[in-house]
């Protein structure tokens, strides 16, 4: 599907003559909502076990006080995915090309990171999904639960299709949001605390830097921001006419809102529950089960099942989504058929997932691995942010470059600032320097 011709294609010549953002493409709200789909897939991929783990820590230290950080980082995630969609519409190439079009070394960097995503991240997500399954079925051992989860994920990718995955992810996202909000309903929410949480503030225990890194690492999934352009490729969202492509972008932006801000909405439920029952007692949950056993006394024994269901939906969808992203990047990088229905795509997903499942024998704590992944995400986003910013201002993006649009400039700069902040912070941390 990717087009190798990097010289000026006919549509690029047309684009170059039109002032950026000068076309008026009004699309009714109803029509934008009707076409939502890819957003649910990306949102369910973004919201994984890391959101529960990071939310538990952030809430334990500061209750709802860091809710603002979710909105800020989700806005940066929106900007990142918007640039990735604009790149696709300007050049008819998805994610990985953004890197290789600048320098081949960036392509190798992305390919290596994609493999880590397909193995390390999928390993931790399968592990947590297995834990959640044992919460639902107590007689099941963790090892058997992991095998069930891994087989289900591999079967879905091997025998399923992109459309089926998108539909399934819509339901999984609904399950995630419903489960965590059900917990919030049961424990009650302090509206005043939630409102205060929207105002930027820093916790008195001095954990701001590390918690902000973790929130950024889970919300701006460095590699998963590229997933958005692959969903557009899968859905054939392309047209030779610039006006039609501008319409496609308008619809995609509605999907992007769901994809990026889904995490901020879910965070209210996670932080809200912690704010009510954990934060007042200075308890910092360290494990997923900590969270479950803290909710249960307040919300009732059903909470373990409902919480486990939400956790299962979150980690299962992320195990599939992140693994799919690795397969998209690798197949695209090696220039073979990139669609989810192709044999190379399925082989890469299943190959990585098999190794990820085998690694579970090592009994690595999935939350520990998730913490490592969040740090890697944040560091990786330093590079991704620079690449995306380059394209947002590049004349090569033609009609879809920032141009004179103040809002796009503001969002691009926000994304760049966060990318540099978290990237620099994590690179220094690699050498043992913390600040």
């Amino acid at each position: 599907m990717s087009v190798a011709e990097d010289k000026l294609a006919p549509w690029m010549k047309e684009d170059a003559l039109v002032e950026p953002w000068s076309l008026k493409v009004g699309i009714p709200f109803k029509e934008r909502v009707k076409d939502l789909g890819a957003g649910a897939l990306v949102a369910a991929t973004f919201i994984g076990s890391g959101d529960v783990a990071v939310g538990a820590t952030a809430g334990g230290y500061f209750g709802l006080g860091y809710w603002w950080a979710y909105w800020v980082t989700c806005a940066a995630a929106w900007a990142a995915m918007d640039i990735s969609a604009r790149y696709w519409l300007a050049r008819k190439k998805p994610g990985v090309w953004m890197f290789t079009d600048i320098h081949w070394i960036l392509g190798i960097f992305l390919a290596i990171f994609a493999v880590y995503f397909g193995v390390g991240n999928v390993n931790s997500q399968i592990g947590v999904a297995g834990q959640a399954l044992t919460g639902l079925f107590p007689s099941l051992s963790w090892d058997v639960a992991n095998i069930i989860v891994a087989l289900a994920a591999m079967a879905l990718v091997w025998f399923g299709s992109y459309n089926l995955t998108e539909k399934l992810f819509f339901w999984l996202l609904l399950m995630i949001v419903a489960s965590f909000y059900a917990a919030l309903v049961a424990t009650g929410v302090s509206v005043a605390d939630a409102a205060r949480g929207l105002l930027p503030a820093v916790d008195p225990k001095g954990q701001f830097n590390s918690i902000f890194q973790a929130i950024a690492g889970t919300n701006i999934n460095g590699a998963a921001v590229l997933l958005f352009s692959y969903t557009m490729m899968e859905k054939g969202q392309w047209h030779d006419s610039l006006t039609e492509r501008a319409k496609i972008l308008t619809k995609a932006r509605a999907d992007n809102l769901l994809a990026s801000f889904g995490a901020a909405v879910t965070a209210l439920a996670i932080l809200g529950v912690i704010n009510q029952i954990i934060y007042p007692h200075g308890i910092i949950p360290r494990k997923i089960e900590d969270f479950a056993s803290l909710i249960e006394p307040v919300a009732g024994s059903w909470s373990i099942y409902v919480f486990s269901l939400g956790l299962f939906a979150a980690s299962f969808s992320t195990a599939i989504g992140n693994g799919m992203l690795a397969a998209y990047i690798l197949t695209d990088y090696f220039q073979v058929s990139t669609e989810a229905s192709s044999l190379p795509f399925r082989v890469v997903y299943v190959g990585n997932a098999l190794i990820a499942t085998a690694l579970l024998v090592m009994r690595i704590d999935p939350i520990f691995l998730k913490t490592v992944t969040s740090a890697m995400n944040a560091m990786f986003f330093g590079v991704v942010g620079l690449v995306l910013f380059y394209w947002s201002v590049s004349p090569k993006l033609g009609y879809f470059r920032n141009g004179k649009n103040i809002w796009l400039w503001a969002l691009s700069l926000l994304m760049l600032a966060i990318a540099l902040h978290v990237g620099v912070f994590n690179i220094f941390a690699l050498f043992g320097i913390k600040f």
Partner: protein
Amino acid sequence: MRKRLVVLLVLALFLGLFSAGGVWAQEVGKAFKVGAAEVTVFAPRTVWEGTNAHVIIKFENHTNQPIKDIKATLALPKGEEKRFSYKGKTELTLPELKAGETKYLAFTYISPVLGKELKDYTAVVGLEVGDAKGSFNWTFSVRPGARFRQNTPEIVSTIMWVTIGMVIFWFLVFKFYFNRSWKLIP
């Protein structure tokens, strides 16, 4: 329309189930009187091996007078204390609870040790408000926990080497099977 209806039904079912759960939960966190104070104990009924459980006690003063000398004690299951890891205090006090005030005491980070018997245990939370005494039997079931290895730098390096190995593996698979050439993005 039908899709929206299904979505609404699923949401209603979730919230309904949870609300019902909330009602049952009040038997666990049921308020009772000890002296002049109203006391509610929040404690989990399910605890996983190697995971932390916390007992939170809420004291409310609905009278017009301050309540003095409040004490809470924790007695781990008798004769089975070694099956739990708990480094906190077993006695906590509140000198005064002003009129209309609500305060909390908490016994935190109580953890069933790995590899011990999985069954129901009963710990006792003792409560004293002035001269009045009360108690709460905290019965909980210990479930098997996932036993993870200790987090070490070796785990991170193992994951890194596996990743490098897989990168090399995929290069070979694409070269010799799918592409049969070094066909990469230029």
